């Protein structure tokens, strides 16, 4: 036990010191693969930047988000497995001193730290007093952690900053780490064990799996047990540790893994999108990155449809209309036009862009005209801007405010109908509602008049006169207009029902007379208000001797 304890202390020592030499050290290690080395070199460059950061921000309380997320952009990329493995142990009360290390030592020594750590976890846990409290202030952190370990972190700080005493330490470090790694490797974990630990929330490490075969075994095992959390963790580990081309290839062979990876990317994307609305520039960049990756993966998997829809979603989430128009055009060109399967969708996206291109100038002119006090807008003030409204609403708007505009103008309802290939029905529905609200009764008549043979005219409605009446009733048209169109409804029974519904007494009486239903007429007349036209007509009819009533 005591030896274990010592080892754990050694390890902590290592952790503190390693911060000085982390990248160099890692590069020297013979276990570092080529990819790793590349990553390390890259992140080393970035790390120096953060070191500067640290100097600048005395108290990283104030700027925690920026500095930490930036660093995580790298560490998250280089060593996600460690990030995934630690929480399990960190959630235990005894290991509460772990998080400070994790958040504080943003370097890839983490990944080695984990390798060493996991094998010793039980002992290191016991060596820690549970009262340690993590605090954000750096100073506090040192003083607090010092109480739990033999060598205080504060003592280490000078050596941490001055690199002069580094070389000897470095040598020791290398030796130590080689030992630790060897030990870790001897303690072989089976994929089954590791996955089980992941599921049960016990500490685990993925770094012990070194060969591609082992890693894939791990993935297959995770897939086999259907545990999403574990699958995602293993995938992210793979993404970091094997070549992208291999990663893609292996992923493609495992549809379940693909789905999990996609939903991971999607979750990140959705979330980042949410974040973006809070105006975090940094996360915008990251969102862009994840988004690109999501698009790439979909493209790689030949899921062109999904990729196209994703791009479309991104395009329509652009906040300003001008940007949206450009994005839509771009996305149309890149993802829709060349896909035969998406021909119908391509047409719709094209229309969407065209609609925005129409709305933009209309809004521009009309808002100015409204500001100048155009009487039309004063009579019927515009409630909202026309931008981003659906097509039919736009048509309604144009019918309402620009009903008489010539066809060569953007605002012409006819032009809209033509460009978007709207059906006659759609057009009549909309134009009728608009004109009825404007009380343009002659306009309605025009709309419903078709030229017959030899210059004769007749009333035709593609949507049926019952619908015409419904619209007129809804927009509270006067009774004479409503009656006029009620009389055009085919079928006397139907006409009667609809006339009753809209309480058009005249038409009801007429129809009852037509049906020669004396009894019904008497009943109906008894309910009519005295002195009304309907009642007079009914009484006339009842008195009339020319009508042959049904018996």
């Amino acid at each position, binding site marked *: 036990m005591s030896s274990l304890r010592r080892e754990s202390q050694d390890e902590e020592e290592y952790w503190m010191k390693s911060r000085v030499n982390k990248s160099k050290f890692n590069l020297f290690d013979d276990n570092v693969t080529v990819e790793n080395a590349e990553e390390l070199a890259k992140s080393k460059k970035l790390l120096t930047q953060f070191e500067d950061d640290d100097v600048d921000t005395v108290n990283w*309380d104030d700027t925690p988000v920026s500095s930490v997320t930036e660093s*995580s952009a790298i560490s998250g990329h280089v060593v996600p497995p460690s990030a995934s493995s630690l929480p399990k142990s960190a*959630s235990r*009360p005894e290991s509460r001193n772990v*998080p400070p290390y994790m*958040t504080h030592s943003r370097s890839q020594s983490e990944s080695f730290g984990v390798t060493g750590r996991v094998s010793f976890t039980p002992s290191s846990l016991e060596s820690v007093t549970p009262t340690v409290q993590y605090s954000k202030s750096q100073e506090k952190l040192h003083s607090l952690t010092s109480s739990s370990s033999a060598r205080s972190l504060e003592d280490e700080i000078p050596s941490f900053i001055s690199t002069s005493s580094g070389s000897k330490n470095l040598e020791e470090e290398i030796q130590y780490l080689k030992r630790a790694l060897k030990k870790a490797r001897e303690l072989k974990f089976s994929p089954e064990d590791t996955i089980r630990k992941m599921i049960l929330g016990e500490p685990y490490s993925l770094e012990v799996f070194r060969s591609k075969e082992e890693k894939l075994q791990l993935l297959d095992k995770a897939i086999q047990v*259907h545990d999403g959390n574990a699958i995602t963790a293993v995938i992210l580990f793979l993404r970091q540790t094997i070549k992208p081309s291999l990663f893609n290839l292996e992923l493609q062979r495992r549809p379940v893994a693909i789905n999990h990876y996609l939903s991971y990317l999607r979750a990140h994307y959705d979330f980042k999108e949410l974040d973006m609305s809070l105006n975090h520039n940094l996360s915008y960049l990251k969102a862009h990155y994840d988004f690109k990756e999501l698009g790439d993966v979909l493209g790689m998997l030949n899921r062109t449809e999904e990729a196209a829809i994703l791009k479309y*979603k991104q395009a329509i989430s652009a906040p300003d209309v001008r940007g949206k128009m450009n994005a839509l055009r771009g996305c149309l060109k890149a993802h829709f036009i060349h896909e035969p399967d998406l021909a119908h969708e391509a047409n719709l996206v094209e229309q969407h862009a065209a609609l925005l291109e129409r709305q933009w100038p209309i809004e521009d002119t009309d808002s100015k005209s409204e500001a100048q006090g155009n009487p039309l807008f004063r009579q019927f003030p515009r409630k909202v801007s026309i931008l981003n409204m659906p097509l039919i609403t736009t048509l309604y708007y144009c019918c309402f405010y620009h009903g008489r505009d010539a066809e060569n103008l953007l605002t012409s309802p006819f032009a809209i109908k033509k460009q978007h290939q709207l059906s006659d029905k759609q057009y009549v529905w909309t134009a009728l509602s608009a004109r009825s609200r404007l009380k343009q009764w002659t306009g309605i008549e025009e709309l419903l008049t078709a030229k017959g043979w030899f210059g004769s005219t007749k009333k035709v409605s593609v949507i049926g006169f019952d619908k015409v009446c419904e619209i007129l009733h809804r927009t509270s048209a006067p009774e004479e207009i409503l009656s006029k169109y009620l009389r055009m409804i085919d079928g006397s029974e139907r006409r009667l029902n609809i006339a009753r519904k809209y309480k058009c007494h005249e038409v009801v009486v007429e129809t009852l007379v037509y049906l020669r239903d004396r009894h019904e007429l008497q009943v109906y007349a008894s309910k009519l208000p005295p002195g009304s036209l309907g009642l007079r007509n009914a009484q006339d009819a009842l008195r009339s001797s020319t009508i042959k009533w049904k018996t």
Partner: protein
Amino acid sequence: MGSTGHLSNGKLNLNLLRDYYRRELLECLDKCLGSKALVWDDALTGPFGLIAEYSLLKEHEVEKMFPLSDKGLPPSNVQNIIFVTRPKLHLMEQIAQNLLQEEHKGGFRKEYHIIFVPRKSLLCEKKLKESGVYGTLHYIEEFNLSMIPFDSDLMSMEMEGAFKECYLENDYTTMFYVAQSLMTLQFLYGIIPNIQGKGDCAKNVVDMMLRMRRELGGREPQITPQIDNLLILDRNVDLLTPLLSQLTYDGLIDEIFGINNTSVKLPPEKFVSSSQSPEDAPTEKKKIILNSSDELYGELRDKNFNAVGSLVSKKAKTITAEFDERHAAKTVSEMKHFVSKLPHLQQMRQSLSIHTSIAELIKEHTDSEEFLDSLRCQQEFINGLDTDKVNTYVEDCIGKMEPLDKVLRLICIQSYCNNGLKTKVLDYYKREIIQTYGYEHLVTLMNLEKAGLLRQSGQRHYPTIRKSLKLIVDEVNEQNPNDISYVYSGYAPLSIRLAQYHARPGWRSITEVLNLLPGPTIEEIQQIPVALRKRRSSITSSHSSVMDQKVTLVVFLGGVTFAEIAALRFLAQQDDGGTDYVIATTKIISGSTLLDSVMEKLSPVHLNPF
């Protein structure tokens, strides 16, 4: 949340489950010493309300409760702040914001904790680390609350995203939660010997369950199984039923007003007592708890709405008659007898007035032309009439800009009943919808296609399924039903027919139909020690008839409607059924909530503001 007696009235005492959750919760809370404030993820307060009441939390030093929001925490002088949250990234962001603000404020030292419900996730922890607050957290706990007991025979996980995640995003996290809760149920009620299921998700859940049991390595409670059969059904095995308008009492309440966590919020106008003046009428919605502890509701809920009116008036008469008994009471003992009945009578009278009001509200809706027309259209579709061309009623609905979910429901029903729509018809609908409701709904339509709710024409399975499972029943008795088809006035829910055949004569008789439905058919047997096996009741046993009735747990993955629940309850009451049902689901859904979950979320635009 008064008594919980209604939970223990069924074959399975679900109070056991509730008690189990309470113990677990308190254990979680007791880990932090000292006074506590709970910060709630909004979506969790409802479900938690069903297992614990504030007084219980108070006993465990919970002094304050706040909703989780961007605005940060209100000042308090408690020692512990505990966030109770689902593992969702946007919630992690809020928590991080809160914590950073608290750091900034300084002041009284507190400890911070998170309880993840039902489980923590890798992504969330990563998020917390990225935000730099992971170290500030003291305890990170998991509280495995997933199957929440709603009634004596009903449990729901209230996860509305389940359908979308499983069928749209292929994310099976919820299935893991289901498997876990089934393990909890087996822990409390014994291993379930027979498992059958249909669908991909069902397969997933069964695999996980069996694995989890293996991992327990025989460390399972030695209880005689109280549940005999487990039947797991994927929602996509039957996508037609939830789209149809439910016609049972609670089905209609859910469709019109939405029932959440067994309670419904209703417009207050109907519930103003005559003594109140109209000025001080409440403007806030009236909340009513709906479960079988309300005797009358228990009777009404599963009835076809056409039968509710007569039942209510009959009840009203009996109660009036019983009140009148006091005039007849002459002797002291008679008076005493009457007085003893009084509380019950008064309670009945109150619940009668509530349900009369609800029924009136529903009637307003069901009498409306829109409702009747849409119902007629649905009936035509399920009978296979004119499903292959553009339907004029649907067209009119679009023209009138009726709510999009109504239009989509009809189109999806048409698509199902026509075994997918012809390309021409489908494209026509798509076009009209997008032009009227906004181009953005292109995504909604793609989602519907992906989830299988909307299809291009494929093989003609529906007529076969309809015929062999007798989905359409012409003669329905809504007042005194003799078949489950009464819940949709003439259509028997496919999912419940499957359950019915499962009980008798067994799925082997309908293998052909099962093969037409999507996903694999699963059959597993879990071995249990001989000592624990249920003894086949001997002839001498006096309880033989009771003992013989088997208990089947039916799990609906991706949601179940109230009408389907009603149909299962109807089956349980049949004398010859021989099976009692307990129902568990990821969420109680209606057609609208189902479609809502796969719809593209657009900022609510008034369709025609001009």
